[in-house]
C-alpha cells in the first residue's frame, strides 16, 4: 500500500468538509512550530521502515487503532514532506494536518525539522546560499 510517490495509502470514506475537525476533536492548537514549509518525516520505529519499501497492513501494531487520516500521514511521510505537501496530497485542510502531525510528533512517531524561519527569520548565511542556488537554476 504506501508508496514513495504518495500513492494510494488507505480508504477513509470521507464524505464532507466538516468532518476533519471532528478528527481533531475540535482542537486547533499544536506543540512544535508547524509552518506550511516545515518538513516532517516518519521515524523509523514505525512499521515499514523509513524507505517505504516494506509498508505493512495497517493492522500491524503501532498503526492499529489509528484513524485512516493518521495512517495516511504516517505512510506519506516515509519520504520527507512539508506540512503543505501533506495537506495537498492527502486533500486534508491545513489546520487538520497541523493538529494530526503535532500529535504524531508528541507521540514520537514523526520528526519535525527546523525551518529557516524558526529562529526569527532566515539568517545571512542561509540567504547567501539561497541566492547562489537561485542564480544557478
Amino acid at each position, binding site marked *: 500500500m504506501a508508496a514513495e510517490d504518495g500513492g494510494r495509502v488507505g480508504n477513509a470514506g470521507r464524505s464532507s468538509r466538516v468532518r476533519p*475537525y471532528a478528527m481533531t476533536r475540535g482542537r486547533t492548537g499544536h506543540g512544535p512550530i508547524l509552518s*506550511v514549509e516545515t518538513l516532517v518525516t516518519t*521515524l523509523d520505529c514505525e512499521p515499514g521502515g523509513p524507505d517505504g519499501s516494506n509498508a505493512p497492513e495497517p493492522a500491524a501494531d503501532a498503526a492499529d487503532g489509528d484513524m485512516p487520516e493518521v495512517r495516511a500521514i504516517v505512510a506519506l511521510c516515509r519520504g520527507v514532506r512539508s506540512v503543505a505537501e501533506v*495537506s495537498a496530497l492527502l486533500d486534508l485542510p491545513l489546520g487538520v494536518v497541523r493538529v494530526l502531525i503535532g500529535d504524531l510528533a508528541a507521540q514520537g512517531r514523526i520528526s519535525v525539522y527546523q525551518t529557516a524561519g524558526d529562529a526569527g527569520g532566515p539568517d545571512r548565511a542561509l540567504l547567501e546560499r539561497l541566492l547562489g542556488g537561485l*542564480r544557478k*537554476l
Partner: protein
Amino acid sequence: MDYGSSDRGLHVPPLAVPPARRDDGAPPITSTKIVVSGGFGVGKTTLVTSVSEIEPLTTESVMTVMSEATDRLDGLPDKVTTTVAMDFGRVTLADDLVLYLFGTPGQGRFQFMWDDLVRGAVGAVVLVDTRRVEECFPAIDYFERSGLPFVVAINTFDGAPIYQDADLRDALSLRPQTPLIACDARDRRSAADALASVVMHALQVATG
C-alpha cells in the same frame, strides 16, 4: 475516497534526504519559503510553475468568517464556513536546502491568512499587471505594514503597455527602498531572477 495523489494524477516525489537522525539531533535539511503575491490573474501560479520542480499543489484551509450581507432580524452577522485555496511549488537548491514558493490566497478579506503565511518567510514578490495596476495595491500595503522584505515585479505580458520606472513607482506609490524589476513569469530564468531579487533585498534589509 482514496488518500494520496493517485486519484488526482499527481506524482510528487518526496524530498531525497535521509530521515532525521535522532542521535545527534542535527537537522540534515532546512526549508524556507518566498511568498508570491499580487492581484487575481496576475501570474502568481505561472511564476510558481516556472520555477517549481513539482507540478504546483493546492492546499486548502477551512475558515469560519462573518458573511458580508445579513438579513437576520437580530442584526448579528451570520458565520459561514469557507475554503481558501493556496497554490505552492518546491525547488530543491541543494541537498540540504529546499525553497517553497507560496501564492497568497484570496483577496481583501482573507488577508488575515497571510499573517500565518509570511511568518518566517525570506520575503515576497508582488507581481503587477500594468493593465490593472490597482489590483496589487492591497498586497503592497500589506507587505509595507508587515515589514517583510518585498520586491515589485512588473509581469511583462505580451501586449501590456510599457512604462518608465519613475512613472510606475509614482503610480504604485513605492517607497524608494523597494526594488522595482521586470519579470516574465512564464520564463524560468526570469522567474528565478525575480526570486533572487527578493533574496538580495532581504540581505540588504538584514544588513541595514
